[in-house]
């Protein structure tokens, strides 16, 4: 097959003063898998949202199969055979696969006719693309990988011949990711055009034919995947050379600073979220917790940081023993030298409408020097925040700016700075680099290693296995609320960890 499925000519898009996409022209070959890589904020999602009709371009033209088209809504995009699989699934958990498929394309007054037609079409699609899913299964009962397959089927069901996937592997285990890639290859064989948006270079190398590299709203390079490598792509993405490997001094493990024994946690219905978790954090080490999102890591962080009391077991830190009968709160844990960088900074770590200066003392607001004689000293807080911004390279250096107006990476540096600057004994970090661009990732990783070298006990929870592998001295793998394996980082084998993450061992 030859020719372009999609051509973008001079597409331009601004949000106020932010020029997100700057006159991009590119052509995506029919029946190929094309990757689009770039840092967060490089404009890849904006570009694809323009293509899918979520945003309207300020200038430029979109051509599908060589013909100029107007795409002003997702409905137009679907009509032109363009479908999108979002990072966050758009499925109704309590509906079956078939019901989700039919949703929005019910066809007629009565459901029965549409359902029967859909069932037949689903069987055909499953055969043609080797995408078997039980049509009667409830979404809630499916694994994340299977749910993603339903999303893909949904798009194909609506007649898409061009498939856009936005960071599809973010929620998958390595094994599920491999399965996804086999599906994408099958789709390509059947003539479907696939566009893969990702920041994971390994995936680009593994599955694409072509790759476009975006930086600051522009396409800075186009490569045939065969003719490039991860190092070149990484350099193109950030515009300079990066170390993907982290230099770390040899491990100087000290005394245990925090220990948890037999931690269990149940939810409101009595279902177990955490079971029998025992771990120790020593001074001067980074312990990494690997696992697919949603296997109890968030709950573990909540228990260790004092947000939720454990239902069973005890946490000991700084002479304090916390269990179900003697719960604590995050303020007391902070007193004992436990700092916590939450997983979801927007939900927990910052208060969006607060000024950066206010966010920079969240949790420490009643401590001197911020608070004296029951009054907040806003002058001290402002100067403190300015210093923090300098030390942790938060840009722009504007303590009075609303917290939500900073980019993800800079919000994360602000939160990280807030928790690290007091040199805590124990540092709990959830998803240190989620939604953070490569330049900031390097910085954050170096700061975490610095804390470790200073004698801090660091616990890093991340769904990015690469991150765990490069940061941690010791790796614990979580699955279904349990710790299912422990490996020394030096002897870590990615395949074996992947299997543990999937609960295979």
């Amino acid at each position, binding site marked *: 097959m030859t020719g372009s499925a999609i051509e973008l000519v001079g597409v331009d898009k601004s949000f106020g003063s932010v020029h997100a996409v700057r006159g991009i022209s590119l052509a995506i070959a029919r029946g190929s898998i094309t990757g689009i890589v770039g840092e967060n904020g490089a404009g890849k999602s904006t570009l694809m949202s323009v293509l899918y009709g979520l945003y309207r371009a300020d200038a430029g033209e979109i051509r599908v199969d060589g013909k100029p088209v107007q795409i002003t809504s997702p409905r137009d995009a679907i009509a032109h055979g363009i479908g999108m699989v979002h990072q966050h699934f758009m499925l109704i958990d309590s509906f079956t696969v078939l019901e989700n498929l039919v949703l929005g394309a019910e066809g007629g007054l009565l459901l029965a006719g549409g359902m029967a037609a859909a069932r037949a079409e689903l069987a055909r699609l499953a055969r043609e693309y080797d995408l078997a899913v039980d049509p009667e299964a409830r979404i809630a009962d499916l694994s994340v990988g299977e749910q993603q397959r339903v999303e893909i089927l949904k798009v194909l069901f609506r007649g898409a011949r061009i498939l856009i996937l936005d960071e599809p592997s973010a929620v998958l285990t390595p094994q599920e990711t491999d399965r996804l890639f086999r599906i994408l290859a099958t789709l390509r064989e059947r003539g479907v055009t696939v566009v893969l948006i990702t920041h994971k270079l390994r995936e680009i190398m593994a599955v694409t034919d072509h790759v476009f590299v975006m930086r600051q709203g522009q396409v800075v390079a186009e490569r045939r995947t065969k003719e490039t490598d991860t190092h070149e792509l990484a350099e193109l993405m950030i515009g300079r050379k990066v170390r993907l490997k982290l230099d770390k001094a040899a491990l100087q493990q000290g005394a245990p600073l925090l220990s948890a024994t037999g931690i269990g946690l149940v939810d409101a219905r009595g279902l177990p979220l955490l079971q029998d978790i025992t771990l120790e954090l020593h001074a001067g080490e980074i312990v990494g917790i690997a696992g697919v999102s949603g296997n109890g890591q968030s709950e573990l962080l909540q228990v260790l940081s004092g947000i939720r009391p454990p239902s069973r077991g005890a946490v000991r830190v700084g002479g304090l023993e916390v269990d179900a009968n003697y719960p604590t709160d995050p303020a007391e844990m902070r007193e004992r030298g436990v700092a916590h960088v939450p997983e979801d900074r927007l939900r927990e770590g910052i208060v969006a409408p607060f000024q950066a200066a206010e966010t920079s003392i969240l949790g420490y607001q009643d401590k001197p020097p911020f*608070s004296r004689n029951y009054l*907040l000293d806003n002058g001290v807080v402002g100067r403190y925040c300015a210093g923090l911004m300098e030390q942790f390279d938060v840009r722009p250096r504007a303590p009075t700016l609303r917290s939500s107006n900073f980019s993800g990476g800079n919000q994360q540096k602000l939160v990280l700075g807030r928790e690290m600057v007091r040199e805590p004994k124990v540092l709990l970090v959830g998803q240190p680099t989620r939604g953070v661009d490569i330049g900031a990732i390097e910085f954050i990783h170096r700061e975490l290693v610095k804390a470790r070298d200073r004698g801090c006990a660091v616990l890093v929870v991340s769904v990015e296995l690469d991150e765990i592998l490069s940061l941690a001295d010791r790796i614990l793998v979580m699955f279904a609320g349990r710790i299912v394996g422990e490996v020394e980082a030096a002897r870590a084998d990615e395949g074996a960890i992947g299997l543990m993450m999937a609960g295979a061992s």
Partner: protein
Amino acid sequence: MSPSRKPLPAWADLALVPLINIALAFITIGIIVWLIGDDPFQALKLLVIGAVGSLDAIGYTLYYATNFIFTGLAVAVAFHAGLFNIGGEGQAYIGGLGCGLVILAFDKVLPAWAMVPLGIVAAALFGAAWAAVPAWLQAWRGSHIVITTIMMNFVASALMVYMMVNVLIAPGSMTPQSRGFAPSGQLPALMGPTLNYSIVLALACCVLVWIFLWHTPWGFALRAMGHNRAAAIYAGTNLKRMTMVAICLSGALAGLVATNELMGVQHRLLLDFQAGYGFAGIAVALMGRNHPLGVVLAALLFGALQQGGAELAFDMPDITRETVVTIQGLVILFSGALEHLPRPWLQTLFSWRSR
């Protein structure tokens, strides 16, 4: 919704949006007056003269504004905590009960320098206590504060009728009101027959609320809870306790309406002295952007409408009391319920201009 809209600059948010809202309200009011068959400009003139045309008029306007400041602040404080206190009406009423009980008990024996502060504290404490019930239900039982505060208004009303008719009624009186307060339980007048020193108390409350919200660690935690409960938990704030603090403070402010109405003007305890101020406080807070300064400005507008409207009804026979209520309702509608109406247009305008 175009995704390119950005938040408005602060000055537009604080000044332009309310001004446009008021302008829209007055245009609508003008059309209604015109439909009734009167001259809208004449009506506006009468309204303005009635509100600020003489020292007496200004005194009345400020007297009404004092009530609106108390109830507006009450709603604003709760709002910063992410809680909607609809119970200002009942809290003001019970605040009045507390104020009245204390003064009736001690006004014969205590001098003014002791009686007046005691009356003020009683009004605040009773208002806070009345608010503590829904606050407790919200914090520990999860009962929605909007529902419980509304219901407490009815309970307050029933309780007051019982108290006034059966307990506190002055001997020999045919109307359900208490005996008059002795001079030691009265706030001195400032200007005209109604304006009294409670306006100073109201302004002091504005300053105190401002200091509390933006210059103390508790205010910080309260606002953090209002914007983002998860972040407040993460920060170590006890949300139950903070809910109690916010709502009780809100109730105390509402309770202070009694200092103006009872200690300042009526000089006795009676029924329905608080009528409408509690609910109007919601609109005042909304219009004032929940900021003490904004609350003062909005309270002045509402006070002027209240006073000017009364004069208008008096001077223009076609415009009845009900029409005046309609006018006030439209201002509340445009500045409260339809508060966000011009915002998208302005956002489009601003983002278009800054391109």
